Structures are given as C-alpha cells and as structure tokens.
C-alpha cells in the first residue's frame, strides 16, 4: 500500500473488499487479445492470451522455505551451480532457516529461474509467460488496461526511482488491481517462464542487429511504446539475466492454465 499512495484515497472501497483475501490463492484472468509495449512484428494486432490463473501475490520466504525443506535438492548448500548462482538464498540465515534478514511474509528473492520454475512445478503450476505477466500488470485498481494513463505510469515509475536499500515489505500490502492481483508493481521484479525470449542484448543496443547473425530471424525486439518505461525496464532486466542468476529484488509468482 505504501508503495502506491496515490491510489489509496480514491480506492478505499477496493482495498477494503480485497483485504479480506489479501495473501495467497489464485486469481482467474479472462483471455483476451493484448498489445504488448514491445513491438512484435509477427503479431502487429496483438497476441491472443488464453484464460489463465495467476497467484495473487509473489511467493514468500515462508512458502519457499517449505519447498526447500520438502525438495532438499534446492537447498542453497546442495543446489547445482549450473541451476543457481552462489548468491542463491544467500540472505537466509541457513540452508533451511530464514532468520532475521528474511522475514516469512517478505517475497522470496535471490532465487534463480530454475529454482522458481521447480517451485511452481511442485505446486502443479508454472511460471507465467511474459505476455501473461504484462497483460496482468497493465491493470490499475479499476481498469484492466491503464497503460495510456500518464498518472498511472508516473505512479509506477516512482517506485523504480526509489532506493532499494530498505527492507522489502510483506507481500499483499499493496492495493489490489482490477483483477484482484497484488504487488505486480512496487515490490519486486518477477521471473517469467520465457525470460530468455526477450531478445534484447547489449550487442543489439550497441551495434544494431542487422549485421549480426547472433539472432536468427527478425532480430531483437524493440518497443512500440516508448513511454512505457516500467515495462521496458523489466524487459531490459530480464534480458540481461542468465537462468541461474539471482538478485536482491527478483522474485516470482506462479501461474496455471485452467
């Protein structure tokens, strides 16, 4: 909530209603045709997104600890280096212990894509695709697609400009968006299933893709919506990561198909 104060005053009703089921659980999203802020030359009229379910909140330390205890291969002292870098869960007090720097209801961070994917699979779920994530995250508290509203964009951008030295708040404290989802903006970055489909590389930014054979086909993505910095920052961040990578502000939530 404190991350998006602008919405608070005008949306107290939404907040009150949604607070009843604040943390955990699944939210059903209807299918639809969605135009990404990314320019997709192969889908100029938008991408059809089938109906899916998305976790209401990001996965917490507590939930991930349960997973690590029941799937010891994913303990930080046992996980193969190829699946998680050395900083994986490094902020926990022990391999199967949270401690004071990883509170139970904070979103889990310092997790690799492989670990996030394995967690979701253990829940009979999967990571959301980028399209699904962007589709869900286009909503504000009242509208399913608020992206054209400059005020909404400013609100989101304000989060990105804040220093990340503060401890992360608990999940679910944010007000719900029009679908009932929380924390899509303002808490952590989130892994998506196809993180490595976002073909934006330093090579392309520096040299242009036309002469490079590194990318087969239509080369790197560009944006059709230069004002949507929040989305572009996510894409730039995801495109810079390896699957074994982990950062202090990168968590995840799961999705599933009905």
């Amino acid at each position, binding site marked *: 909530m404190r991350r998006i104060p602008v919405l608070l005053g005008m949306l107290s009703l939404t907040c009150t209603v949604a607070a009843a089921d604040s943390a955990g659980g699944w939210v059903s999203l209807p299918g639809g045709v969605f135009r990404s802020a990314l320019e*997709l030359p192969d889908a100029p009229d938008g991408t059809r997104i089938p109906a899916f379910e998305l976790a209401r909140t990001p996965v917490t330390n507590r939930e991930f600890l349960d997973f690590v205890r029941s799937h010891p291969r994913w303990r930080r002292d046992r996980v193969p280096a*190829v699946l998680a870098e050395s900083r994986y869960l490094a902020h926990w007090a022990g391999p199967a212990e949270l401690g004071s720097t990883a509170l139970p209801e904070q979103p889990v961070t310092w997790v690799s894509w492989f670990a996030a*994917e394995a967690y979701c699979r253990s829940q009979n779920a999967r990571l959301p695709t980028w399209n699904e994530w962007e589709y869900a995250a286009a909503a504000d508290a009242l509208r399913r697609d608020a992206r054209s509203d400059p005020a909404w964009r400013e609100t989101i951008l304000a989060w990105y400009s804040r220093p990340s030295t503060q401890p992360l708040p608990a999940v679910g404290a944010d007000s719900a968006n029009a679908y009932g989802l929380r924390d899509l903006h303002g808490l952590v970055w989130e892994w998506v299933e196809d993180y*490595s489909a976002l*073909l934006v590389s330093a090579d392309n930014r520096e040299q242009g893709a036309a002469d490079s054979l590194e990318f*087969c086909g239509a080369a790197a993505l560009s944006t059709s919506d230069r004002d949507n910095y929040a989305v572009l920052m996510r894409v730039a961040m995801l495109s810079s990561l390896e699957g074994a990578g982990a950062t202090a502000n990168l968590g995840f939530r799961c999705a599933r198909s009905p």
Partner: protein
Amino acid sequence: MMRPACITTCLAIAAVCALPDTTYAVEAALPSDSVYQLDAMLVDQSARPLRFRDLRGKPRLVTMIYTQCKYVCPMIVDCVKALERELTPAERLRIGFVLISMDPKRDTPAALQEVMTTRHLNPAAWTLLRPDAAGLRGIAGVLGVRYRALADGEFNHTTELVLLDADGRILARSALIGGRADPGLLAAVRAALSP
C-alpha cells in the same frame, strides 16, 4: 556408438531409480556445474526416450535448431559438419554432435530423422533430440540459448555451438556460423578429444 551407450545408461538409471535412497548418488556424481544437472526428458530421432543426463559419457558439441528453419539453421548444420570434416577418423569416434530442437510441437522424431537422412548425418556421431515442452526452456537456459517462438511458426534465436566435456561441463562456445569451422572452437574440440 551413442545408442548402445544410451541404452546401458538408461537401464542403469532405471535400476538405480527403483531404489529411492540411491538416486542422489547418481546426481551427486555429476559435477555441480554440469548442464546435465538439469532434469529434462527428450526423445531422439528414433523415438527413443532419454534423459538429458544420458548424454553424459563423451565430449559433445551441442546446439539448438528447429527443422522448419530455412536460413540460419541449415548453416548451423553446415558449420558443425565443416568442423566434423576437420577431425581425424579417430577423433570423430570420440565426440558426439547433438542438435536439440526448440520446436517440439513440429519436430517429431520423424522430422528429425528426415534431417539425418537429407543432411547425410552419420548416426554414429549425430543425435537429434526433441525435448519435452516442459524441459525446453531449461535446456536452452543451461546452454545459454535464447529463443522466442513467433506467431508465424518461425523462431528468433541465438546461435550457440556449445562444447561440453564428458561430464557436461561447458568447455567452449561459439556463435560463429558459416561454411568453415570456427578455428577457436576446433582447437577446443581437439583439446577435449586429446587422450
């Protein structure tokens, strides 16, 4: 070459997996930085199922393709074949060439077999694989390959030739493609095959 080794390994793993307490012994034997740590199932061009880690046992040059690809992917195969031609007969017996499909929907074992036939790939050295949809992104992840399926059925993808040692550790990689073998990669292959 590949097939008897694979069958033996599969049977060995099947036998070990029947005893839950010893499954970790199999995994623990792999180096921590081996790409074969990834749990993924595939089928080869003969529709034979195998685990990703069944590729363990000899150095392999691995890359990802899709068979419908008209332009760059045939060049990738050309590139690997060019490298194969540079090797001595003895060296060729000790390496495997692995093409993994990023298009499991269309790259059936029959489609993979057709590539084997039309490109005259020696089945003793070459293995074409279709991953399970669930394991595809993970395999690309450990190999450092990025790809995106396009609406028209084509793919955007990075081209990586990845040289693995017998235990699945990455020894070298090359993004070069063309009719000639990448000299640096060839040198790395030779080094990996030297007794």
